[in-house]
């Protein structure tokens, strides 16, 4: 049997110690949002607006970009921030709409797994990438591969 507090009863005293995770998640959303705006607008401009735009995208284009540490770090930052920002946003939506505790745990678990797996996968891809893989057809590779 539960009793309901009378209207205008004061809030129960809440825990005041420790890290307020929700506050830091709120701050992280805003900080990562601003960084992502710069990173993604730059990404879209360089990949879609310059030269032949999307028609120029191929293995050679990616190879040319990722042989430069500047773009490796750019894309790695974009990968981490976008997945953290995106999965935390999705977590907010699950909090809002999932009324069933089990479903909510399943959704949030799925989001966490997807984010962690893709961050690890993407980071490995960016930093173990070989722009001139042995045995590949030369016309598919960046032009600098021919020199060696």
């Amino acid at each position: 049997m539960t009793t309901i507090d009378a209207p205008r009863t004061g809030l129960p005293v809440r825990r005041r110690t420790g890290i307020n995770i929700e506050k830091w998640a709120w701050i992280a959303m805003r900080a990562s949002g601003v960084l992502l705006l710069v990173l993604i607008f730059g990404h879209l401009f360089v990949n879609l607006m310059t030269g032949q735009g999307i028609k120029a995208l191929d293995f050679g284009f990616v190879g040319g970009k990722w042989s430069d540490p500047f773009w490796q770090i750019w894309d790695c930052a974009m990968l981490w921030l976008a997945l953290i920002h995106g999965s935390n946003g999705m977590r907010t939506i699950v909090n809002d709409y999932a009324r069933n505790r089990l479903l909510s745990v399943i959704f949030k678990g799925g989001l966490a797994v997807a984010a962690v797996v893709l961050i690890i996968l993407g980071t490995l891809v960016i930093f173990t990438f070989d722009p001139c893989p042995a045995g590949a057809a030369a016309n598919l590779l960046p032009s600098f591969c021919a020199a060696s």
Partner: protein
Amino acid sequence: MPEKSTGALVAPRPAKKYPFPKLTKPKAPVGTLYRGDLGMWSWVLHRITGVGIFFFLLVHILDTSLVRVSPEAYNAVIGTYKNPIMGLGETVLVAAVMLHALNGLRIILIDFWRFGAKHERALYWFVIAIWVVLMLGFAPIHLMHVFSEGA
């Protein structure tokens, strides 16, 4: 559920030492920053574009990861992005990204700046205006790339 049968279960109200302030009931639901007006629609758009971008992000990381498999595998998948129907989809995607980004800036201005909270409606139209300008810059160039022959 016991929560639903409140009548007998409500704890007795404390003695009425001070009268409750008189509350006037509005005739219609009153808009707040987030309910029933521009703020609500910008919130709805922010959610919808956010979810859409999130699912594209998952796919985009997987397709880009194919560079680690072979040049042929990557080129085959990125080739599908050059199809005209996908090109229209990319235009919608970029529109969603830009709207989410600009509206995100508006949210930050509302949160951290008194002027932003006071003028959030004007800021919303400002966001839409900048978004239209950015899309007028992006869409023609991208669609020209998509629909031009060659490459």
